[in-house]
């Protein structure tokens, strides 16, 4: 754009375009911003709008400076000094909108458009789903149209601008694809995302309190997806093992401290094996969920002593790992002294009625004690519900003898409590149970709503045995999943329910697309890139090859584009015009060029005056050209004789510099 144009003042049309683009971008960003930020942006935007309408004045420099300081302070206060992703975005958005109030010339306007492009890019700091990508396209088109508007000399209607912008964006797709496939990926994220970016992630915690899991059950977001190689386990075998909790402290169950150095339990497996690949959504913790019981920890992870798999770093991006699990196993047949103490530990002086109850079981064998407890759950009017009453003092007593309404965590904890009280070593395992098969793509979707807690009891000679007290209360939960277990499904969010088959189907379709998106677009990292390109070329490629190919491909695309552009220009010229261009090139050598709007005849008269010795030739060329272009014969079609004549005339014209 010429410099002079940049200093041009803005028309009201310009401002409306910019305001509309920013409004759209902010609307999409709204969930990522505190309400007060969105509101003040709306306020400043409205101010600019009324300034265009000349109902309000633009603020002067001092007021603007004061406003920026105020807004900056407000961001600091609102985020309590934590300057991470969220605070930065809020500040950027506010400053962008304030900049509107001093945007008067085209240069500032173009700068604003660039800032707005950056804001669109920021959407992906929060979410990289397909939906976000789709949402980013309309503002991209609108913004590009806004930019085009700035460089137009004469006004155009909005349909034209939007069409042109979409066309230009479409034309950039090849280059985008080349960059996507070939741009060298750096292992790990390109730049560090601030810590607070992970705060919104959900998943299993490292402790268990009443209400933890039932809260998680309300969340239908996907926890992980599983693709089985070969056989699939039945629903009641789908126990996805997460953290194992040993330590009871009042209401809370915790993992044992690593420092006490518990010995690794020994696992012996028999029978059938299930091979599978898990794509785990980021949850900002270390758990790598695996089917009971896995033999080998996934790459980049380890087993804890009680066989839950943990990765070395919190899972902050989607990862994939393969594993094999055996449904029949023996775990930790030998129970060490320290483990025994820990697995019988209970806070003293609580829940007296529970202790009272188990006194009568003293003479029974451990197996009988288990049955006794399960029998109690089965025969007494216990109810499986997502909305249990709140338990205060002596919660186990309260639950077992009064309320009798609870969710899996209630059953698991009270069962383990009873077992420990009667001297049987027991622990709680948290994780997920079940999953939903997506018929499109044949993979299992496990959601946060499938979160579950169960018990493991140590029996002499058999090691740690899984006992799920929830199964005693509600067998449907284990056999068919949570939507079957809760008769009153209105307790559950829509997607976890079973009574909307069409919605389910639509979701399955969407999820299989989303899954491919995750695998192929978001999961396209350094390893996958090289793997893909090696497959494509059949050669082993390095980083320098990538750069070479990328540059080459882009140059190729640009050459192809310019070729087509040139051809288009050429194709628009008819044969006579092409010959006339030749003639103009000859005259250009003696510094003679037609001005804009100078016709062939006028130009020829001017040239003839300056080049008297060629006067006749030049005038003849002009009239011959005019006859070819404008006469009645020329409208009837191409005139080969006349063209030949013009060509000869131009060939014979050899101007020597005076």
């Amino acid at each position: 754009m010429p410099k002079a144009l940049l200093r041009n003042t803005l028309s009201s049309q310009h401002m409306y375009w910019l305001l509309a683009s920013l409004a759209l971008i902010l609307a999409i960003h709204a969930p990522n911003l505190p309400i007060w930020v969105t509101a003040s942006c709306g306020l400043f935007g409205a101010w600019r709008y009324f300034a265009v309408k000349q109902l309000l004045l633009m603020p002067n420099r001092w007021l603007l400076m004061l406003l920026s300081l105020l807004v900056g302070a407000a961001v600091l206060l609102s985020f309590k000094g934590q300057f991470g992703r969220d605070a930065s975005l809020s500040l950027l958005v506010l400053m962008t909108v304030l900049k509107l109030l001093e945007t008067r010339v085209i240069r500032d306007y173009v700068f604003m458009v660039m800032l707005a492009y950056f804001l669109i890019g920021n959407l992906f700091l929060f979410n990289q789903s397909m939906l976000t990508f789709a949402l980013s396209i309309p503002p991209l088109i609108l913004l590009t149209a806004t930019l085009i508007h700035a460089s137009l000399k004469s006004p155009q209607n909005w349909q034209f601008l939007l069409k042109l912008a979409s066309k230009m964006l479409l034309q950039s797709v090849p280059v985008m694809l080349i960059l996507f496939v070939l741009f060298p990926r750096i292992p790990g994220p390109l730049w560090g995302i601030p810590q607070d970016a992970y705060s919104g992630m959900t998943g299993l915690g490292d402790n268990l309190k009443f209400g933890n899991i039932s809260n998680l059950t309300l969340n239908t977001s996907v926890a992980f997806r599983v693709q089985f190689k070969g056989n699939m386990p039945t629903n009641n075998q789908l126990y996805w093992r997460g953290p194992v909790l040993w330590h009871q402290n009042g209401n809370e169950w915790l993992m044992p401290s690593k420092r006490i150095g518990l010995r690794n339990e020994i696992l012996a497996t028999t029978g059938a094996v299930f091979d599978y690949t898990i794509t785990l959504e980021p949850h900002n913790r270390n758990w790598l969920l695996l089917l009971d019981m896995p033999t080998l920890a996934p790459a980049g992870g380890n087993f804890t002593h009680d066989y839950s798999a943990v990765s070395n770093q919190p899972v902050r991006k989607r990862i994939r790992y393969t594993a094999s699990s055996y449904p029949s196993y023996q775990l930790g047949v030998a129970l060490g002294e320290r483990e025994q103490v820990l697995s019988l530990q209970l806070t003293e002086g609580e829940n007296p009625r529970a202790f009272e109850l188990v006194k009568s079981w003293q003479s029974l064998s451990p197996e009988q004690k288990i049955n006794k407890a399960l029998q109690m759950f089965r025969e007494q009017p216990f109810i499986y519900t997502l909305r249990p009453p709140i338990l205060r003092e002596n919660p186990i007593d309260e639950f077992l003898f009064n309320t009798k309404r609870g969710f899996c965590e209630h059953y698991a904890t009270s069962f383990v409590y009873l077992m420990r009280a009667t001297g049987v070593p027991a622990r709680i395992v948290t994780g997920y149970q079940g999953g939903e098969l997506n018929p499109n793509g044949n993979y299992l979707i496990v959601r946060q709503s499938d979160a579950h807690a169960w018990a493991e009891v140590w029996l002499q000679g058999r090691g740690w045995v899984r006992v799920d007290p929830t199964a005693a209360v509600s067998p449907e939960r284990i056999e068919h999943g949570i939507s079957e277990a809760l008769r009153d499904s209105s307790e559950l969010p829509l997607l976890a329910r079973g009574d909307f088959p069409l919605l389910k189907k639509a979701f399955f379709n969407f999820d299989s697309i989303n899954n491919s998106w995750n695998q192929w677009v978001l999961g396209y990292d350094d390893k996958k890139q090289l793997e893909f390109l090696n497959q494509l070329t059949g050669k082993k490629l390095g980083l320098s090859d990538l750069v070479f190919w990328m540059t080459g491909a882009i140059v190729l695309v640009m050459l192809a584009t310019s070729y087509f552009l040139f051809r288009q220009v050429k194709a628009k010229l008819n044969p006579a015009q092409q010959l006339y261009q030749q003639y103009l090139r000859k005259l250009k050598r003696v510094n003679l060029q037609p001005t804009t709007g100078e016709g062939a005849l006028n130009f020829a008269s001017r040239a003839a005056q300056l080049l008297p010795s060629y006067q006749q030739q030049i005038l003849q060329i002009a009239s011959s050209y005019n006859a070819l272009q404008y006469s009645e014969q020329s409208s009837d079609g191409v005139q080969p004789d006349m063209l030949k004549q013009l060509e000869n005339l131009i060939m014979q014209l050899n101007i020597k510099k005076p």
Partner: protein
Amino acid sequence: MIKTNENNEKIMMQTVLKAIIDGTSQVILGKQTQVKLSLACLLSGGHLLIEDLPGMGKTTLAHTLAQVLGLNFRRSQFTSDLLPADIIGVSVYDRATSAFQFHPGPVFTNVLLADEINRATPKTQSALLEAMEEQQITIDGETHALPKPFFVIATQNPKHHIGTFPLPESQLDRFLMRITLGYPDAQSERALLKSQAGRHSTTGALIKPVCDVNTLISLQHAVKNVHVSDQLLDYLQDLILYTRTQFSTGLSPRAGLGLRLCAQAWALLEGRDFVIPEDVQAVFASVVSHRLAAENSEIAKQILERVAIR
């Protein structure tokens, strides 16, 4: 055989055109362009507005043209107390026949010179302009057709002169062309001053008609047959579109049609049977300036310098 006839006709036509231009230029010295423009305007069947200071030869030009073309000529001096009836005529009760008898006004002629049109009141102006558009007048419910061809050559003093009623844009649009004469160059001025006859020569028998009504009608017909190629229409449309995007009110479709017709007439005057961009450019300023509310031809020139020929 037919071809030779056609050629003969063409040669004849060119001879007539040359005779008209020469005849007029004998009287209006050093103003060949303006003479050609006025002729192009009349050949296109349009009305002409000549705008200039008093004493520049406006009336002389109009008068000479009419005489050379061999047309009936009436002149009407417009003043502020002129009434519509003074132009178009009046119905008078005739006792002998006991009926109203229509007495045609000066408008019933081939060429009407409306001298200093902007001195008349708007009411009178509009009566004339109506006649110009309809080629007929209606009085007392009776319609009277005007003779064919019918031209109005109006002269006008520049607007800022005292005692004038400037023509509104809608009425300016009725005139196909507006031309200005300007001062003569030194050589023509000398010739003018030397001549004994001076102004009297215009009214004398010196000027012989070289044309008659039928020839003029066939010339007008020939103008319409001058070829306009698609390439040229592209250029015309570019010009029109440019005025529409750059000015608050651009050229109307009527102006576009007029521009094409004038360019055809100009091409005929140049002895060509097809229009080239230079023909459009030659008539452009005269056709569009008054429609774009421009004081002079400067703006038209700028437009021509900005719109490329495709």
